[in-house]
């Protein structure tokens, strides 16, 4: 019995070592951002990104591309997430594979944090300059203080070329044009090398002599004072005074070399310009909404009233960046990411034009694998099981109206 036990133990140990060794050879690059892991209600009820456009799908190093579009700061912002009073327009990319050459909200450059208003729509643009070759998932993103990163839709962009060719020229207010990629790097290395050399010299002065055992014996026997000689003290004085002299002299020479310097800039930008969407003349009441788990489909019963002067049809339901379209009403021509686009994912029980003044109750079904793939179905496990999204209605002339919906969601498991 003992022999069998020993063998099992030995084999288990070998198997463990083999598994660990094998695991070391498989280390895929983390090229996306765990956006699917973010709580579904965060993506559905905070920032709604729409009209997104990635200007290019392939760029060479040093070339630029833009992500542009609009976002609605949802009026029904969840109570469990801090309001976007301090937010930062970011991009979700795996580190600085691009540099952010510019970012704007409503035409205003936003290198700093901004304050956003609930219920408002903002137009944004982010200018990216390619830096590192590879295939990168490029997302729009809004960081909210107290709320965390709220990641928008992402699209794969290929960067070609070589990172060694990347340059980042900047002209300072003192008239000097520098390459920010490696600016002042020699200076960093130089000063650190100088101080390391001085520190090592001080260490070497002491550790070249017998250390722990004889010194401990001396201290233990009351001869500690004999361990520091007058010469040692002179060397110590030299290091102490020398250090202060070098610090003072290097600071003075630096001030002479860089007479114009300014403090770091910080602050919150308020009063961001909002984007005025056409006034909606459609009112929508959500009578009920269910999510059918086996069918990966959300069904809504909506009572829609057209208060406008032209007939309208429902063409799109957009939630968490996933777009469900009724192709009879609207087709995407923006090359939106395939995995986020259900081109035939929206079914409406009666989607004939809703005449001005007419009210109709319709059954709307948004179905696609994206519910599962993007883990939006996990909404049923969230602390506040409500769904939200954008409904887009079109009239015969192609005029679009946006209506937000926000209602409880009941899951059905059979």
């Amino acid at each position: 019995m003992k022999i069998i036990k020993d063998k099992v133990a030995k084999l288990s140990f070998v198997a463990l070592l083999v598994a660990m060794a094998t695991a070391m050879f498989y280390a895929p690059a983390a090229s996306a951002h765990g956006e699917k892991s973010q709580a579904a209600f965060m993506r559905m009820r905070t920032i709604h990104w729409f009209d997104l456009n990635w200007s290019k799908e392939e760029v060479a190093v040093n070339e630029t591309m833009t992500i542009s579009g609009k976002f609605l700061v949802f009026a029904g912002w969840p109570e469990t997430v801090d309001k976007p009073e301090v937010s930062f327009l970011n991009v979700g990319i795996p580190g600085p594979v691009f540099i952010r050459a510019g970012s704007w909200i409503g035409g205003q450059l936003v290198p700093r944090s901004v304050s956003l208003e609930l219920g408002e729509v903002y137009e944004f643009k982010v200018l990216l300059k390619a830096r590192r070759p590879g295939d990168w998932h490029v997302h729009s993103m809004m960081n909210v203080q107290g709320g965390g990163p709220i990641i928008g839709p992402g699209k794969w962009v290929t960067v070609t070329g070589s990172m060694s060719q990347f340059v980042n020229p900047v002209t300072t207010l003192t008239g000097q044009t520098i390459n920010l990629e490696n600016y002042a790097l020699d200076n960093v290395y130089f000063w650190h090398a100088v101080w390391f050399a001085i520190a090592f010299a001080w260490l070497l002065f002491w550790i070249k002599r017998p250390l722990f055992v004889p010194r401990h014996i001396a201290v233990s026997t009351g001869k500690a004072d004999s361990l520091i000689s007058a010469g040692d003290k002179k060397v110590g004085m030299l290091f102490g005074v020398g250090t202060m002299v070098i610090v003072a002299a290097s600071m003075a020479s630096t001030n002479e070399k860089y007479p114009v310097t300014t403090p770091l800039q910080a602050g919150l930008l308020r009063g961001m310009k909002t984007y005025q969407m056409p006034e909606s003349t459609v009112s929508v009441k959500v009578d009920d909404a269910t999510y059918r788990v086996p069918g990966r489909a959300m069904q809504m019963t909506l009572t829609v009233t057209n208060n406008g002067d032209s007939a309208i049809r429902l063409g799109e339901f957009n939630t968490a960046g996933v777009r469900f379209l009724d192709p009879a009403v609207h087709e995407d021509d923006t090359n939106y990411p395939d995995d986020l686009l259900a081109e035939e994912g929206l079914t409406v029980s009666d989607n004939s034009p809703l005449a001005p003044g007419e009210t109709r109750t319709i059954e709307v079904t948004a179905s696609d694998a994206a519910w599962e793939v993007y883990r939006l179905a996990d909404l049923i496990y969230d602390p506040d099981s409500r769904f939200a999204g954008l409904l887009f209605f079109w009239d015969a002339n192609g005029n679009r109206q946006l209506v937000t919906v926000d209602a409880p969601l009941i899951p059905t498991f059979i």
Partner: protein
Amino acid sequence: MSASQSAVRSRAEAVQVSRTFDWMILFTLFTAVLGGYHIHYMLTGGDWDFWTDWKDRRLWVTVAPIVSITFPAAVQACLWWRYRLPVGATLSVVALMIGEWINRYMNFWGWTYFPVNICFPSNLLPGAIVLDVVLMLGNSMTLTAVIGGLAYGLLFYPGNWPVIAPLHVPVEYNGMMMTLADLQGYHYVRTGTPEYIRMVEKGTLRTFGKDVAPVSAFFSGFVSIIIYFLWHFFGRWFAKTDFIADDAS
């Protein structure tokens, strides 16, 4: 050989063993301090030390010395009172900065491609050397805490200024003025470090105008004195050998 016999047979052999022991202890001490101090400093100084656009004249100047005088004080307590070796602070900071450089070069640059000129570590060496020298000359914990601790705080900003000054040159960018360090932080995207997390230029020292760095440095020096005392006692406590049987101390 019985337990009562010596392991060495001559004085020369004893010296050789003693030196071998020295290097073993030094190596162990160095790597242990490197690891422990590095974790401590990353957790407490963190972003202030990681990024140039956090290295401001108020909070970086204040925080970095206060949270970094800890291990130097503790290691000094051990090495000085047990061995009369005035290298505790320098040894700690050299270990920390070597660890930091490995981290910044291998991880920040090697894995995530942040240029080294945005993520180099702060220079803590001038203060550490002075701390050791004051302890050696004064042979007093109180004197080292008061004079050395204050000097440690005061020397930090000027000791780093030659490195960061080029990055505080202003630039006009799309109609806004910022420093090159600000621009680095904006250009080199940190998905998990949004701008609002930056704790820079916050505080109430507005009556000092542009000369706020010396005031911050003095404040940092004063708090460093207190932290020095605290960690010096930690060091002394950890350097006790009560757990060894028959030890008088």
